[in-house]
């Protein structure tokens, strides 16, 4: 197609006219470019000021040690020392490992439960608003309240959960204090807190699916599970990927639940990168090292996002 259009002979027009036309086109092009910069420039400057500059500042700080004397900051260059120290940081290593486990476990649980709830809710004929309201309640609760609720629920001596399992003859468990259950408990709390997010996105997606496809499938004798596997899931795939990417990034940033429930313990069982970062940067006031850790975490989260988006593009292309 392209080569054929290129083969069309050029119109026989006077060179003077063509030159004049090209010149005025050039002027117009220049005017357009100026106008573009005038209109786009402020937005670009704002973006630079709000996102790129702070990141650049973080990057620069990561190559320094910052201490204080006589009320003044003393900046000492350390090169790549902070980055080289990261792999040897026991808390950072444990934080990365646990964050990956947390992200996979929590996001996986939220996706499955959120999707199931959305499917159920989409098929409810009466009282749908009531169900929706109930399902989204946890996401409306502030993180600090979620921490308080679950700290009480999981308390060894007085917790509701231990009292409940005591009724069926089971011994109480130290949900937040035992290595084998602490991270799982935090994951369960996160699933409880954030499943409504997935539920809402999935419900919006399911309700916007074309009904004629389902009607045609039913005419062809499709069963409910076939509708789910061959119609709903393939058509929902882009929404599922977007939700997954959103939640994965948010799960990687988990902080409040760990801070409120376990402070990373017992040992390093629930240490996550955001909590390590908080300790190094804020509690220990190691600004340079904390900045290096921040840059590393931003890099890892960006990588995850790129991976998720690439997967989405590929799946869309193959569809």
């Amino acid at each position, binding site marked *: 197609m392209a080569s054929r259009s290129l083969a069309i002979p050029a119109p026989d027009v006077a060179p003077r006219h063509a030159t004049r036309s090209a010149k005025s086109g050039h002027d117009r092009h220049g005017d357009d470019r100026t106008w573009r910069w005038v209109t786009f420039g402020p937005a670009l400057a704002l973006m630079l000021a709000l996102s790129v500059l702070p990141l650049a500042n973080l990057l620069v700080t990561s190559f320094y040690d910052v201490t204080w004397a006589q009320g003044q900051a003393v900046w000492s260059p350390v090169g790549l020392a902070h980055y080289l120290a990261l792999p040897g940081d026991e808390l950072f290593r444990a934080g990365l490992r646990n964050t990956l486990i947390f992200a996979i476990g929590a996001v996986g649980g939220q996706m499955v439960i959120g999707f199931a709830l959305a499917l159920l809710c989409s098929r409810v004929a009466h009282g749908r608003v009531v169900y929706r309201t109930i399902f989204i309640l946890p996401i409306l609760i502030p993180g600090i309240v979620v921490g308080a609720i679950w700290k009480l629920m999981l308390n060894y001596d007085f917790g509701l959960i231990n009292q409940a399992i005591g009724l069926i003859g089971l011994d109480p468990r130290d949900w937040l204090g035992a290595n084998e259950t602490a991270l799982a408990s935090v994951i369960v709390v996160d699933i409880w807190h954030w499943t409504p997010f997935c539920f809402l996105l999935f419900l919006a997606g399911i309700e916007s699916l074309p009904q004629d496809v389902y009607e045609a499938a039913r005419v062809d004798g499709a069963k409910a599970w076939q509708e789910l596997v061959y119609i709903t899931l393939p058509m929902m795939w882009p929404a599922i990927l977007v939700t997954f990417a959103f939640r994965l990034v948010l799960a990687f940033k988990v902080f409040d639940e760990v801070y409120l429930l376990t402070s990373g313990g017992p040992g390093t069982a629930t240490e996550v990168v955001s909590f390590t970062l908080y300790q190094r940067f*804020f509690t220990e006031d190691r600004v340079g090292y904390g900045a290096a850790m921040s840059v590393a975490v931003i890099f890892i989260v960006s990588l995850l996002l790129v991976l998720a988006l690439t997967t989405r593009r590929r799946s869309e292309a193959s569809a």
Partner: protein
Amino acid sequence: MDNNRTFLSRRDMLAGAGAGIALSTLAPGSARAASVSPFTIVINQSPWFDSFRKTVELYEKETGNKVELDVNPFAGSLEKQRNSVRAAKGQYDLLIMNSGWFAEMYFGGFVEAISDIDPGFKLDPDVYSLGETIYFDPVKKTMTKNGKLMSMPISPLIPLLYYRGDLYKEAGLKAPETFAELEANARRFNNPPRMYGIVQRGARGPHTVAYDFYPYLYGFGGSIFKDQSAGDYSVMLNDEKGRAALDYYLRLAREAGHPKTASLDQAEVIQNMVTGKAAHTMIVIAAWSQMDDPAKSAVVDKVEFAPTPHVQGVPTAPGLGHWLGGIARNVPDDRKRAAVEFLRWFQTKDAQVAAAKFGAIPINAAAYRDPISQERQFRWMKPLAESLPHAVNIYQFPEASEVIAILELGLNRAVAGEITSVDALNTMADQIETVMAKYNYNTGKLPPLR
């Protein structure tokens, strides 16, 4: 209008103004305090905050001066203080600094010596110097009486032994003085899950299990560093005394303590005590009022207090978890002087007796000699007065938070049973020595324990 009035010459006016200034300088504290500027105190929302607020209100009532309180969570208060003191002009005048970060403020040059703001300021000799932490020598970087007066104690928090006096009376026991007595008594009352012999604060936190461990470590004669005041930061944590202390701490937890010590923070420890599930605990004295609060406690009037136990030949050695008030360097002079006036009033016996009645822990030894200390509700005053002179300042350098983080992780892993006491002590000692070397302190370490 009086036409016969005498007009003052310029010289007379200057002389009068000078005399006025001189008189105001020589006048007693309360008279001067009446004319100072309003100023701002940045403080944390601790259990003792309400008593401090009431004490400040009393100051305002007595002097007519205005004080603004900026109240924050523990960590939030530190961040606000850092942001304020690192700015060109500070927002907060009087900084209420915790034992975990006052050294950062001294070493960083962020607080100004009270004696520099007002060379005439006299520290009441009965005010506790709390391990000399109110003094700092900016040249030698040490906290000794030879340094300048940098701050005033605000809340002299240290741990005491809380024990069930009613059970002791029934059993005919006396308050334990040594660790051996504490262990025997804890075993005697240990009857889980109805009652735990002792409940310890073994969770990992900002300053949780490490703070709980200090009275054991120092009560066994051990220490983290060899001699901080002399500038010797050699790590002694993993010596035989350290091992004895940690083994004892773990043995108490496993054989006479709460089964889930590794996950207990202060709130859970207090919960166990006020619900009658703990026979002993060692927590900061600030929790005393909760023991006798009928709305919170099932053991009203049943809890007694004693200095933290120790081994024979070593004094009680509670770790300081106190709060100090320091004046920011980067605030206007009139506000600095206003803060000094408040501290001048706050340190007096009268103010401290009033503060105690509001629920505070007095900073002035004279308040502990007042008849108030004989009242039943203030039965903690006598053991606290005995303990305060022995309080240990655990850290005298600004990078303490890195050492605390190491202790929190290592001790919590030992309590949780992840690693042995020997592994925990050796690992922590190694890591602490690395931190101290990184900041160029004179440090070293012992051969590893076997």
